[in-house]
């Protein structure tokens, strides 16, 4: 309880810093704007701003990036409701319910429910985050090399949930990420590997250009295949806030979505989309008006939005508690910390507890800002979708190149472009870039702990398994793997069941 209070009030204590507020305001507004631009998600935005975080302290960087994530999740719901275009896959159910309400002229009700769901879910989930991350981070002291290896193996097992529809393509993508970590000096024998005599490769590739290339630049290249505008806001936009009766009606769904979103978000690989889908189904089960689902249900919007936003906090639990990123954005969050010389791992939160304070400040501060300005901003964001999409894409590419140039000169830009092009083909042909990025960040510590652990255990792999903590983590890894493969098979079955022969052509 003491640690809980320290983390919470440590985070709140940071609100006395005016620089932090500037970063929170910029981050939140930027997050809402990019959230309102369909296709430019939090991952791409993190890729754009990552080099700038070098100018901040690690705590400020964490708070700034999380403010973007909070703003982004809220901003996503605006185009979903107004033009029926989801800003991210997790917002699909908001389109289903919110766009129906907008077409019926109840835009204020839909936007209001998204506002309440998003911000309610976010604020409550912060407390769950603190309650869950502290005991997890406390385990760090029992971690020796075998336990660390098991932890990284768990991270590797989580990749299965990010592989996409083809498990083989997912495995190849993950292997590509692992290969990135192999470049440079061998962790045990200090033998150079895969450097081809280039001085720049001798110490290995920095993860930032690789990850930004794979996650952000590739997506921007993919989007440059088409020229179109995002859409127009049709019909009148009423901005009447929901009544107290309506708010009371959605409260159970909102709380259910918050708990589910936080817990599912904490499961590596599951993420906000899965949390939102499950919460939506649960809300339908407990609703007194299940017939409204699919036709403009306010409970559906509240549950979905709450779960998506709560997943922001949930994803941070393994990321900051164990140093295991669970999504594209958390991979980039850890990359931002490595820019400051911090080593991702289970010791991260115990050696640098102020990072947890930064996370609390970022999540709470951005939510408070949105509580005050979010309703007003939603009306403003209607105009954002009128921005020329081509201009946004071109400037985003230019900004990525500039960021990389400032980070590591022409070589960093070159690496970023190479992985951007590789990522483009990966996205187009179903090789998961998220799996590759996650593997790239886990690769070096995975190999190091495996080989150093074997040395420590007299070359006995059995000794790895018989250690209690290692055994538990390996069992969790096996469960994650089995669950992931089962989920993948089910997705494949659904995809082939819904497969319709080709009828349309695109040039």
């Amino acid at each position, binding site marked *: 309880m003491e640690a809980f209070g320290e983390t919470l009030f440590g985070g709140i204590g940071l609100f006395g810093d005016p620089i932090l507020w500037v970063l929170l305001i910029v981050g939140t507004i930027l997050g809402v704007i990019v959230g309102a631009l369909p296709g430019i998600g939090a991952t791409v935005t993190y890729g754009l701003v990552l080099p700038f975080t070098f100018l901040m302290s690690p705590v400020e960087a964490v708070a700034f990036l999380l403010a973007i994530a909070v703003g982004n999740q809220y901003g996503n719901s605006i185009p979903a409701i107004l033009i029926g275009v989801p800003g991210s896959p997790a917002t699909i159910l908001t389109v289903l319910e919110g766009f129906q309400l907008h077409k019926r002229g109840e835009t204020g009700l839909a936007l209001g429910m998204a506002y309440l769901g998003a911000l309610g879910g976010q604020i409550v989930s912060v407390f769950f985050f603190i309650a869950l991350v502290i005991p997890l981070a406390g385990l760090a002291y029992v971690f020796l090399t075998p336990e660390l290896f098991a932890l990284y193996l768990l991270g590797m097992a989580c990749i299965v949930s990010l592989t996409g529809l083809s498990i083989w393509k997912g495995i190849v993508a993950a292997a590509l990420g692992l290969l990135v970590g192999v470049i440079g000096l061998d962790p045990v024998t200090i033998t150079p590997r895969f450097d081809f005599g280039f001085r720049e490769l001798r110490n290995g590739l920095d993860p930032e250009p690789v990850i930004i290339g794979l996650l952000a630049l590739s997506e921007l290249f993919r989007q440059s295949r088409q020229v179109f505008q995002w859409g127009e806001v049709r019909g009148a936009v009423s901005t009447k806030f929901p009544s107290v009766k309506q708010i009371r009606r959605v409260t159970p769904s909102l709380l259910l979505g918050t708990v589910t979103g936080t817990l599912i978000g904490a499961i590596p690989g599951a993420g906000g989309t899965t949390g939102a889908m499950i919460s939506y189904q649960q809300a339908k089960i407990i609703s007194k008006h299940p017939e409204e689902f699919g036709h403009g249900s306010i409970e559906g919007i509240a549950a979905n939005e709450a779960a998506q936003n709560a997943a922001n906090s949930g994803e941070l639990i393994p990321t900051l508690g164990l140093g295991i990123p669970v999504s594209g954005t958390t991979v980039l969050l850890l990359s931002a910390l490595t820019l400051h010389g911090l080593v991702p791992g289970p010791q991260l939160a115990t050696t640098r507890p102020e990072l947890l304070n930064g996370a609390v400040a970022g999540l709470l501060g951005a939510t408070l800002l949105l509580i005050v300005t979010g309703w007003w901003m939603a009306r403003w964001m209607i105009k954002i979708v009128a921005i020329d999409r081509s201009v946004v894409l071109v*400037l985003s590419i230019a900004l990525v*190149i*500039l960021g990389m140039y400032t980070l590591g000169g022409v070589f960093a830009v*070159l690496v970023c472009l190479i992985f951007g092009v590789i990522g483009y083909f990966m996205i187009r042909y179903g090789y998961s870039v998220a799996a590759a990025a996650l593997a790239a960040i886990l690769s070096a510590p995975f190999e190091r702990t495996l080989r150093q652990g074997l*040395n420590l255990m007299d070359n006995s792999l059995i000794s790895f398994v018989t250690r209690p903590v290692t055994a538990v983590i390996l069992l969790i890894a096996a469960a994650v793997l089995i669950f992931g493969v089962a989920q993948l098979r089910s997705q494949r079955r659904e995809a082939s069941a819904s*497969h*319709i022969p080709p009828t349309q052509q*695109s040039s």
Partner: protein
Amino acid sequence: MGRGKRSHATICASDRAAVGAVGGPGRTEVYPLDRRVDLALAVSVMILGALVLIISLNTSVPPRVIDPLGPRFVPSFLGAVFAVGGGVIAARTLLRRELHGSAEGEPDEVGVPASGSSAMATMGLSVLYMLAIPTVGYIFGTLLFVPAALWLMKVRRMRTIVATSMVYTAATYALFAYVAGVDLPLGPLAELVGVFGLPR
């Protein structure tokens, strides 16, 4: 892939499409996975696997270091994964009858012409921009890249092109030079900036 090539596409009435996914309600998605490119990528993965195996097996192993797995283990394992994985994907692609039709890849927006060559040109321009920064400087390089990329993305309003290029270049240079204190190369402008006594 290319603009000139007409490719069949598959409409996948998945849950995402049913609620509008990328295209909005009522729209469906196009999965334009070209089997030939899919096969070429799978073969490339196999070749990569062979190369990784060859390079890793030629990695020197220092004597007198206690290391049961050694520096070759992980890269050799990855090489084998690439070779086997590429082989399985290639075989699966060859066994698939239709030219297009897997829902594995990320779809294009339906109803809007998609051009692989446009994406390639954007990539090419990005490479030129990277080369231009250290040679002609950040300001000239950006003033060339942004208008060219906007033109490529079918922006034809001169006012938009000029204003976007000028404002973006000035804003980012000011941000880096004056706020962040980062030196961006100025190329031929370096002397001119020195004459006016501005920070470089």
